């Protein structure tokens, strides 16, 4: 036990004496959260739209007003004919065009189904989707409001509902995402680097030739990183909650447990990488290419999994981050308990066991 | 005859610390000159100044007739440099290394092709010509890096800790190459803390704390200090308090 204590103490010395890395590890979560929150936002703000109002009635006027009142949209121009739409898009003046059909007023009066056309510039698909979603939601809400006062509900087809994140704040999307990336980074990449550093410096040789058991070497090396990862979690959650008003509806205890589970999974991955590599550089490259990129790209953090090609959707299932993000969103935004996330937790747990098993099999008690 | 290297009160300071303190010496053309000193005595700093890699704080020096303050680019063209650690690219083959260094020193393509043949043949390493350098034995690496360092026929070649760790026969083959180069008029400047290596030099200087503490032929130094080997001379100079105790 004394051996174990000194080992962890030594590890903490390494971490605290390497000021630059420590600063990056502690500062990066803050910078990332603030960056995503204020700068790299995919929220829509004053997007320029064009309107072709063929109906020229009261209804289209009101819907337009609603759209403008939301603050998301700004009218670039009122168009007069269909041909102008394409020209407008080509000139890049506008991101979305809304076409009110001539029969709008008439159909509504006669209670017939009516379509309002939303045309978006999909060269930037993310923005296009968001714009369409926003506009649909606003129109839908308008229709609902109108419906209340009348005997017969209006029929306009916009079936988009924005649950749990009614104001469509993207903070709610990226806080779980950034947290996942940071935990992965601290746990997997930093442990794989810390262990390969001992190999590179030759100190692993001395440790192996000592009575320390390999398991103790590994556990001693990862515990400080668990603490560091959990500290980061707290910082990110606090930033999310106090700076961006992100709610944590579910149990904090459950949240902590799930974070720990993900940290352990990532640590196991980091250990596995370190058993297969001899240099810090290779360990870092592998961590970045095989863990960080998939975590950012395939976990649903930035790109929705539903809109990926089937092959990538299948691959996304083996990315631990995907399951962790689902769990985080459930616990934080929906406030669900363990009964709705046990499946995802089990998958993560299974992955952790698999990686730990593989690391133990691969860990060498000698130099080759 | 103009000496190959002259140094006159050459000094280098880093802040308050004087790494090289007023060293004065001359090296004649075709001489094998040993430049010894303990770790941190100032050898590397002195050699960097002579190589044109570091500007002296004060004093004068010239290498191959060029001034170390003003003509560093000319110096670099007229010297060769070999260090055991950094000379060759491990992930290039023997042939590619020769090609690369030939290119660096601006040898024409025809000359490089000629050198590849000459050099590989001369060293008797045909079987390794297309082998990656990391896969050839250490002894071959050292002989190869020396051959490459003198490929462009420099007037002076600087050898930095050249022969550590090789077997005694290979080591002697290496020294024979150095003797050959010297007999053809090349000046050899060797830094080492491997004392028996210094016995191969024509003259040696021993640096202690930034100064040249002794400079003469190995034989004269041994006589002067009543020592049986250069190792003893060195120990007496660097551990004067324990001498005779």
């Amino acid at each position, binding site marked *: 036990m004394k051996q174990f204590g000194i080992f962890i103490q*030594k590890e903490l010395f*390494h971490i605290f004496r390497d000021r630059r890395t420590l600063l990056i590890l502690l500062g990066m979560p803050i910078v990332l959260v603030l960056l995503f929150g204020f700068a790299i936002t995919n929220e829509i703000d004053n997007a320029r739209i064009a309107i072709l109002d063929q109906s020229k009635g009261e209804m289209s006027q009101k819907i337009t007003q609603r759209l403008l009142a939301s603050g998301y949209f700004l009218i670039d121009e009122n168009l007069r004919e269909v041909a102008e739409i394409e020209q407008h898009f080509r000139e890049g003046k506008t991101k979305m065009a809304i076409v009110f059909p001539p029969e709008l007023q008439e159909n509504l009066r006669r209670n017939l189904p009516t379509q309002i056309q939303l045309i978006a510039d999909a060269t930037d698909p993310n923005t296009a989707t968001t714009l369409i979603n926003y506009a649909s939601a606003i129109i839908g809400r308008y229709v609902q409001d109108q419906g209340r006062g009348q005997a017969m509900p209006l029929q306009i087809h916009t079936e988009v509902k924005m649950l749990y994140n009614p104001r469509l704040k993207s903070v709610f999307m990226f806080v779980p995402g950034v947290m996942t990336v940071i935990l992965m980074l601290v746990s997997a990449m930093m442990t794989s680097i810390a262990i390969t550093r001992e190999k590179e410096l030759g100190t692993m*040789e001395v440790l192996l030739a000592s009575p320390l058991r390999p398991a103790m070497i590994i556990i001693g090396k990862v515990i400080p990183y668990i603490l560091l990862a959990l500290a980061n979690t707290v910082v990110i959650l606090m930033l999310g909650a106090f700076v961006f008003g992100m709610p944590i509806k579910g149990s904090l205890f459950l949240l902590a447990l799930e974070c720990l589970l993900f940290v352990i999974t990532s640590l196991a991955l980091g250990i596995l990488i370190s058993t297969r590599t001899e240099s810090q550089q290779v360990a870092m490259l592998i961590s970045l290419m095989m863990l960080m990129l998939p975590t950012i790209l395939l976990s649903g953090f930035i790109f929705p999994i539903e809109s990926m090609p089937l092959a990538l959707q299948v691959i996304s299932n083996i990315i631990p981050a995907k399951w962790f993000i689902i769990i985080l969103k459930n616990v934080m935004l929906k406030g669900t308990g363990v009964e709705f996330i046990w499946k995802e937790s089990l998958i993560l747990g299974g992955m952790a066991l698999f990686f730990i098993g593989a690391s133990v099999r691969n860990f060498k008690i000698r130099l080759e | 005859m103009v000496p190959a290297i002259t140094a006159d009160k050459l000094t280098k300071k880093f802040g308050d610390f004087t790494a090289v303190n007023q060293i004065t010496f001359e090296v004649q053309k075709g001489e094998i000159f040993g430049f010894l000193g303990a770790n941190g005595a100032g050898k590397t700093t002195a050699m960097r100044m002579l190589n044109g890699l570091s500007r002296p704080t004060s004093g004068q020096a010239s290498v191959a007739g060029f001034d170390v303050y003003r003509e560093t680019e000319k110096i670099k063209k007229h010297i060769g440099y070999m260090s055991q650690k950094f000379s060759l690219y491990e992930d290039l083959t023997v042939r590619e290394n020769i090609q690369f260094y030939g290119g660096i020193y601006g040898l024409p393509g025809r000359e490089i092709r000629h050198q590849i043949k000459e050099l590989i043949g001369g060293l008797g390493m045909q079987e390794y010509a297309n082998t990656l350098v990391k896969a050839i034995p250490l002894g071959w690496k050292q002989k190869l890096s020396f051959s490459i360092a003198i490929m462009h026929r420099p007037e002076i070649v600087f050898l930095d800790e050249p022969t550590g760790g090789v077997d005694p026969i290979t080591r002697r083959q290496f020294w024979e190459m150095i003797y050959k180069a010297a007999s053809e008029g090349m000046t050899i400047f060797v830094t080492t803390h491997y004392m028996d290596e210094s016995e191969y030099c024509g003259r040696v200087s021993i640096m202690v704390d930034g100064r040249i503490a002794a400079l003469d032929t190995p034989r004269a130094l041994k006589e002067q200090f009543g020592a049986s080997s250069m190792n003893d001379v060195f120990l007496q100079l660097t551990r004067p308090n324990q001498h005779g105790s």
Partner: protein
Amino acid sequence: MATTQAIQVESLSKRYGKNVQALNQVSFEVGRGELFGLIGPDGAGKTTLIRILATLLLANEGQALVNGWEVRRDYRKIRSHIGYMPGRFSLYQDLSVEENLHFFATIFGTTIEENYELIRDIYVQLEPFRKRKAGKLSGGMKQKLALCCALIHKPVVLLLDEPTTGVDPVSRQEFWEMLKRLKEKEITILVSTPYMDEASLCDRVALIQKGNILSIDKPAGIVSAFDKPLLAVRTNDMYRLIHDLREFESTHSAFPFGEYVHLALRNAIWPEAIHAYLAGKEHTDIEIKPAQATIEDAFMELMTQE
């Protein structure tokens, strides 16, 4: 236990991949309290051999016992009872002198105080720097610290892989003086070195080259086994001298040795004959004198016999 040798190695072979035979049927024994030198150039197999004894590598064939324990089966026992110092400086550069020592004492289940007696001579030299980071020590100081860390648990056998490589002569000498004192405390020491001149500081040495042991003996024994007449020759032109001597009919071998050439003869002849031969080749300042063979002469002789 007391009757067994400290180290017993029997027909040990080790290959890396298919082509590299690092050790080839190596056998030797090291007695208790002996200071045993493993002398050979880089690539001779010294590091491989020491790593096998330190239980860090497995041999392909043969057997090795350290303090009576078998290196594969009893590796945990060996690891608790040996001190091992790898060729590269392998302490934590960002920990201080004191922290490194405390760390290694603790992982070996002991304390600095318990075995201070053993390291005192060495540690007093480090004491003034005990708060300094190990990475900021000079080469010689690093080696002393590494030795302290390898000794702190009072090992029965000390395995030192090239402890003096890259260290200046003063530190080298100090290091060997420390080994001498440790020997008096009945610690068995196996030390490897590429410096032939260090052989004479050992009780017995094994000369090793390309995975083969060339000879095992006391240093004096190895030198006296060199039975050819040996002369030291010098003239005004070293380079021509070597070549001219090699063409001389009675020459067995001619190798440069510092300012002289060591000339081993097939049969004893008068130095005057050599003098005349060299004078005929237009050498001047000719000096010829009898020479005492060194470990290097013996090593080269054994190498050429291979």
